């Protein structure tokens, strides 16, 4: 396998992204959106598209830059650091990968050019469980009627198109439908991380055979790699936010005095901060490895991806909990950014499978 070190190209990409995001989408940007009641900044996304981020996983002949999963994870990791909010994961990672598996060139071109924003509608209940999909796609003449509901559709409120996982006669099928289809009702959620997620209700929504992504009754062969890519990128975003929260905390320890001394001199805090750093180092390896494994074979990266996701969830939780505690009272105030990190970490912990889900995957693959 490729080395577990960033390539020069990846390092450059990270630096470029960091420069851009620090300027265009620092945490204050998310705060401004929230205070204005906005869930999306179209200008920011246009800039990302212009930099080629939307097409990072799309072949060059469909207008993308085809830089691979590791590169996508590099971007996600940087986005996590500043809590940049954009449809990058739903659109450029998850939808692009699914559509690429299905060879849907036109749809990919629409993503790379910024014409389409996608959301993935997969969950129906509080927990990630694709195999339990109940939304029905009933054959109706030459087409299908979709009935049911979807929950926790990230970016569902701003997407033009939705990839919907539905149950068909012989299995599960993935449909690519317009977000404004007749019979499709979108209800915005009031999300704690101030990003967008929606509940979708399908009432006789019409779809045709052309809307099927991949093959009927075989959603998983296009969706499984797309989920893996999304999980890896989300893990990358999560370790990004964890390291940023840790860096804020370590800086604070050095600034803050109490009882007449710098609190960085308190051994108990030193040891806890050091432990947190160790955890971030170990998770960073798992995230890097997930990108590499996907680049090698996106259909056979489950262990690597679940490992990254599980570790990232655990590490970020520790980072934000320690972050608030070590900041003391001011860490609890909305004025301070730590709360934004804590909220994003919680959402990231649930999206695309929680710790228990990924731990089970790992246990299964390790034979116990």
């Amino acid at each position, binding site marked *: 396998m490729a080395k577990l070190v960033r390539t020069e190209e990846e390092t450059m990409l990270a630096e470029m992204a960091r420069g851009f995001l620090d300027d265009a989408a620092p945490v204050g940007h998310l705060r401004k959106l929230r205070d204005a009641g906005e869930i999306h900044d179209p200008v920011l996304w246009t800039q990302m598209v212009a930099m080629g981020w939307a097409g990072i996983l799309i072949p060059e002949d469909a207008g993308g830059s085809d830089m691979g999963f590791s590169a996508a994870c590099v971007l996600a990791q940087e986005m996590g650091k500043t809590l940049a909010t954009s449809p990058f994961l739903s659109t450029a990672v998850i939808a692009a990968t699914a559509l690429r598996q299905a060879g849907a060139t036109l749809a990919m071109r629409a993503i790379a050019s910024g014409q389409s924003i996608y959301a993935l509608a997969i969950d129906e209940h509080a927990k990630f469980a694709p195999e339990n999909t109940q939304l029905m796609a009933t054959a109706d003449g030459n087409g299908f009627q979709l009935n049911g509901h979807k929950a926790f559709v990230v970016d569902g409120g701003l997407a033009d198109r939705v990839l919907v996982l539905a149950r068909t006669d012989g299995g599960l099928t993935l449909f690519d439908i317009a977000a404004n289809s007749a019979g499709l009702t979108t209800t915005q959620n009031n999300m704690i991380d101030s990003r967008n997620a929606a509940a979708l209700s399908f009432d006789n929504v019409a779809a045709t055979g052309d809307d099927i992504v991949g093959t009927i009754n075989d959603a998983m062969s296009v969706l499984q790699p797309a989920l893996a890519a999304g999980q890896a990128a989300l893990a990358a975003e999560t370790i990004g936010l964890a390291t940023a929260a840790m860096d804020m905390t370590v800086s604070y320890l050095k600034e803050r005095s*109490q009882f007449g001394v710098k609190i960085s001199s308190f051994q108990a805090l030193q040891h806890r901060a050091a432990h947190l750093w160790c955890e971030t180092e170990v998770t960073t390896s798992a995230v890097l490895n997930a990108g590499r494994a996907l680049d090698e074979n996106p259909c056979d990266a489950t262990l690597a991806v679940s490992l990254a996701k599980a570790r990232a969830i655990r590490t970020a939780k520790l980072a934000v909990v320690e972050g608030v505690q070590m900041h003391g009272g001011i860490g609890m105030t909305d*004025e301070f950014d730590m709360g934004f990190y804590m909220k994003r970490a919680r959402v990231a912990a649930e999206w695309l499978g929680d710790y228990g889900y990924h731990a*089970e995957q790992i246990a299964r693959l390790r034979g116990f």
Partner: protein
Amino acid sequence: MLDITDPNAFRSAIRMWLDDNCPVEMRDGQNTPDHICWGGKNWAYESDAQQIWLERASALGLTVPTWPREYGGAGLERTREKIYREELARINARLPLQSFGIWMLGPALLNFGTHEQKETYLPPIARGEIRWCQGYSEPGAGSDLASVQTKCEDMGDHWLVNGQKIWTSYADKADAIFALVRTDKDAPKHKGISFLLIDMAAKGVSTKPIRLISGSSPFCETFFDDVKVPKGHVVGDVNRGWDVAKYLLTHEREMISGGGTGVSGGRALGAVIADAYPDGLTDTSLRAQAMDAEIDALAISLTIDRYKDQSLTGQGTGHASAMLKYMGTELNKTRHELIMSANGSDALDWDAGLAAPWLRTKANSIEGGTSEVMLGIIARRVLDLK
């Protein structure tokens, strides 16, 4: 009724009195902040029943059952107080009144106040007429509560106060504040502090609410700008306010630590999980963590009982409050993490009502003495590690 000393007879009398006097609407067990009767000059009663219940209870001193009768209490010693509380719980009654006056200022005055101060301040607290708030913390001080910067100058016939407090709960709703102020800036840190009572309506006092990561909060910043305070408003000796503060910190810790057990306040974790997973929770990782937390909740709850029983038998409980504060608040954080996890993506919507309490618990291990401070106290005072 309050003169009955035999426990069983007292229990019967209380039970009968409650039957007759506690309005049915007040028997819904709602003791959450939203339903607390805080009292005060501007108090808007939630209902007639709330007002009647306060009036009837305070008439007998049962808003502050252990305070002496001369100061508005019922004069119950611990055994009968416990019986009274058990009977309240039996009919699921709300407490007639809760306030920082009852929890904190009252105990401080009873221990450190002059007879005149007690006569002046205690009865209005007991009747819910004056609402107090607490002014200890200052910006930048954090756990170092003794690093008080708010200046209190002796102007001969009055004190002049200038400075700022933070984390003053309900300062915007309170009638008065008990605050730590610095009366001697040259003395060693702990030796120049006084415990001062200030009218919130006095000229120069202003407040500003603090927004938390969990949303709007009862906390305020409170500013003192050339505030004049009568000389007699110091509790305890001038420059010895730290003794009063230390005494009260213990009370505050006891208040905060109960939260995690699912006994006082929140529902038991097991019940929450059972609700979310009527067919049983099969996720290995979450279930294992829930088991651990439920085990801790039950055992901490028993420890609270044990310490209460120890006090009743006259045995000291050492630095039990620091221990319960630490264990209780850490557990409460874990418990709310698990409630969030158990409810998955449903919990990620503010409107589900789970996220705000979850985030709010993160402050439990900071307010009233951080977990680190508690561990330090235990290490030094219980284990003699220094």
